């Protein structure tokens, strides 16, 4: 029998608030051959993680493995007791969790944790296990493989930690490895490195793996076969190429459609309006954390940001985590005081903090938080949440207010019955709509959207983007749209600003961001977004990021390019000694780089192949 995993009629039930057993996985059937990588894909709540955990004979608290059979390497996982399962977990089946940071013990060194399962199962003596771990570190392209094991979890980056977790799982040479959304929490530029390492290790060792993800493009790189799940039932199973190119099930088609975002037409800020005074202008904005006492170093989060937002326009701000994009929005909203620079609304200077702003200024700039779960008071009804800004800014009361609340619900395509519910009774997408409606209630001129679709499933996120684009046409509001996802930003924004460690490295019109020249960082960002076809990962691998031009270790001058350490186009003697100039491009954009337009274009042109069309 070549099937290493065989799942038949697996049913899992969960106990709900009323103490009833509700099925969350209804009869899953699939099998995995030795050396095969199977992907489980679906939205949140589709049961993909539940099924993956069932492969270890484990059910989350409140859940029960109710029926069916799960056979892994000849062991019937549902029939075994806890003690026997403990003997298999970590040895026959290993698990790589989504958040490596939460899975490592912060007070023990990495090596101890990586080889722990080999020692627990008494597979090899400590010295052999450590040697094997170093070998795995090398295979996973971790820096300094000999010594990284002596570090502690907080001393390595998130992407490295995720790879160390893979080493932890592979140390026992398990028959089956379960990867549960291992790259979801990572930036795209980090994700690509981790994926590359995973793929290499899996191929070299011929491991059998289950890859759980919501991201079809990532799965396309990793999996041989894909199982599409929805609401705990298998919709479609097929080879990766078939699922991507000829999906049979309508749900799979809708997933594919949501991933390739259609270009929403720009609202077409007409020239006459744009020429007039811009709605909001940010001039020379600096923000820093930490007390600036004397010459003590402060953490500079925003570094000389200039931004002009015309009325009715959508400005996209992208960058990886830590690039300062959220701080920028918070500074505009007045929640973080800038250390220098000014923000002008209709040409009038805004107070740096909340205290100095008028209610009218508050009304005109609204902030939509990333996470609708925490942005809505769990004890206020929807009517109260939406009614408060109406009362606060527009003095609406009683029936008029109620009517306007219902109008707003209608505006964000929610039924009127929602008004009397609490946020906890709504789904994630519904909550995000309420979050947006609350901002709209103020009838603002500018809405600051902080990663509003990041926490949502692709299909739901696409619906929110559609809604925002429609509302812009109806209400003529401006958006500042913050995201780490360049395809989302490109789908909705007129102008795109790329932030890197607090600096505006590039500002472009949306159309312009489809073709070089790019800032080297934008180029990395754009080419790191997984394309929805097989073989993409190998193509990108052609450009080895390890081969950066060498630098003589000159002392780091102040104000030099922050991207220096990762830049494939850096030039010794120039990039590490002088601050880069801001170059105005012919199409109206600007790039913060030493290289001129034609140099950048020449260096980046061949990479167009990466963009490719969607399979």
């Amino acid at each position, binding site marked *: 029998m070549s099937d290493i995993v065989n799942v038949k009629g697996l049913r899992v039930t969960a106990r709900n608030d009323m103490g009833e057993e509700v099925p969350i996985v209804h009869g899953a059937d699939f099998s995995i051959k030795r050396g095969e990588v199977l992907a489980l894909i679906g939205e949140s709540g589709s049961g993909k993680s539940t099924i993956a955990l069932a492969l270890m004979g484990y059910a989350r608290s409140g859940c029960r493995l109710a029926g069916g059979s799960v056979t892994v390497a000849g062991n019937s996982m549902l029939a075994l007791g806890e003690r026997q399962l403990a003997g298999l977990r970590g040895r026959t089946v290993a698990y790589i969790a989504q958040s490596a940071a939460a899975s490592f013990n912060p007070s023990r060194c990495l090596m101890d944790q990586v080889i722990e399962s080999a020692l627990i199962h008494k597979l090899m003596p400590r010295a052999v296990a450590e040697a094997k771990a170093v070998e795995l570190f090398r295979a996973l392209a971790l820096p300094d493989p000999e010594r990284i094991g002596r570090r502690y979890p907080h001393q390595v980056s998130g992407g490295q930690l995720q790879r160390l977790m893979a080493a932890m799982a592979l140390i026992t040479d398990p028959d089956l490895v379960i990867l549960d959304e291992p790259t979801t929490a990572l930036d795209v530029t980090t994700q690509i490195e981790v994926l590359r390492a995973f793929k290499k290790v899996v191929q070299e060792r011929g491991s059998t793996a289950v890859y759980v993800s919501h991201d079809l493009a990532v799965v396309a790189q990793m999996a041989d076969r894909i199982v599409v799940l929805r609401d705990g039932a298998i919709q479609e199973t097929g080879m990766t190429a078939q699922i991507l190119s000829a999906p049979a099930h309508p749900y799979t088609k809708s997933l594919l459609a949501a991933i390739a975002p259609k270009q929403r037409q720009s609202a077409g800020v007409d020239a006459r309006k744009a020429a007039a005074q811009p709605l909001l202008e940010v001039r020379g904005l600096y923000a820093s954390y930490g007390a600036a006492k004397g010459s003590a170093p402060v953490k500079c989060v925003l570094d000389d940001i200039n931004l002009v937002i015309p009325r009715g326009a959508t400005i996209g701000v992208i960058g990886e985590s830590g690039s300062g994009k959220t701080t920028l929005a918070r500074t505009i909203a007045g929640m973080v005081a800038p250390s220098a620079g000014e923000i002008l609304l209709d040409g009038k200077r805004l107070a740096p903090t909340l205290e100095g702003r008028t209610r009218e200024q*508050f009304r005109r700039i609204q902030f939509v938080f990333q996470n609708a779960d925490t942005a809505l008071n769990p004890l206020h009804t929807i009517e109260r949440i939406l009614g408060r800004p109406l009362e606060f800014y527009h003095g609406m009361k009683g029936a008029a207010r109620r009517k306007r609340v219902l109008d707003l619900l209608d505006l964000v395509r929610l039924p009127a019955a929602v008004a009397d519910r609490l946020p*906890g009774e709504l789904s994630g997408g519904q909550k995000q709509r309420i979050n947006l409606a609350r901002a709209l209630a103020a009838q603002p001129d500018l809405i600051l959207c902080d990663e509003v679709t990041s926490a949502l499933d692709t299909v739901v996120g696409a619906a929110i983007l559609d809604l925002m684009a429609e509302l812009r046409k109806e209400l003529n509001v401006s958006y500042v749209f913050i995201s780490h996802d360049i395809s989302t930003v490109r789908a909705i924004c007129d102008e795109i600003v790329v932030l890197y460690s607090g600096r505006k490295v590039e500002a472009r019109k949306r159309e312009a961001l489809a073709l070089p020249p790019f800032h080297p960082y934008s180029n990395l960002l754009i080419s790191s977004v997984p394309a929805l076809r097989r073989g993409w990962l190998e193509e990108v691998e052609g450009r080895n990021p390890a081969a950066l031009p060498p630098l003589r270790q000159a002392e780091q001058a102040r104000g030099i390019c922050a991207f220096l350490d990762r830049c494939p186009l850096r030039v010794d003697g120039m990039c590490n000694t002088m601050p880069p100039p801001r170059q105005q491009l012919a199409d109206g954009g600007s790039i913060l780089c030493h290289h001129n337009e034609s140099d950048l274009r020449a260096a980046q042109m061949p990479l167009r192949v990466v963009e490719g069309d969607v399979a």
Partner: protein
Amino acid sequence: MNPSLSEVRRKPRRRVPLAGLVGAFIVVFWLVMAVAGPWLAAHDAGGVASDAVFAPMSAQYPLGTDYLGRDMLSRILNGAPYTIGVALAAVLVASVGGTTLAMFAAAAGGWFDAIVSRVVDTMLSIPHKLLALIIVAAFGSSVPFLILTAGIGYMPGAFRIARALAVNVQAMDYVQAARARGEGLLYITCREMLPNMLRPVLADFGLRFLFIVLLLSGLSFLGLGVQPPAADWGSLVRENIIGLSEGAPAVIVPAIAIATLTIGVNMAIDGFAGRKRRGNGV
């Protein structure tokens, strides 16, 4: 997970657990007694009713008699306003004062928070009983001073707990959203923050009530609480402590009264404050 359709159709309210109902019944009973007790009492608080000292329970004296031959039931009913009333007033001073101060300290932050927190830390370093003894020694023992003594003594603890909660809640996005909307401090604290910290604060209120009952009983036991011939339940225990060797009900009955009150309050708070509406993640 998405709320399934069946959940949307019927909207069941979780019922109050039995323990909560029992607790509520006990609390209501004692609250009524705190008001009506003295009128219901068959005998005067100080009136010696019987020749028999430490008499057992009988039809005439349902809870026996005390060391002077006074009716225990009447003594307890007369003591209820002192024990419950004084403790309730004191806990209101402690919890309302502490929570209000804590919310404003957390929401305002900066120097106000720093000063209040340090003052409270200083107060926390003084043992309650010692503080109470000093105040009683300095100002004498009267009901208003007892209330203030217990209230101020237990306020720092209430402040600490409420501030820890408030700091967490005020970092939540919905509070930030209210700030970004331009809301005032009063709205943010009372409407956005308070409802989300009420459950733990109420649980703390109940616990603090019990501590105060015990503190007052302790003071009375030492003879520094409510002065004779009036007596709260703590004094009743002390007065009759010699009856312990005789197995007289006069010792155990006030102790049982204190116990039922404390357990009842705890059960009620667990039952009601612990209840949450389905679906919210608090």
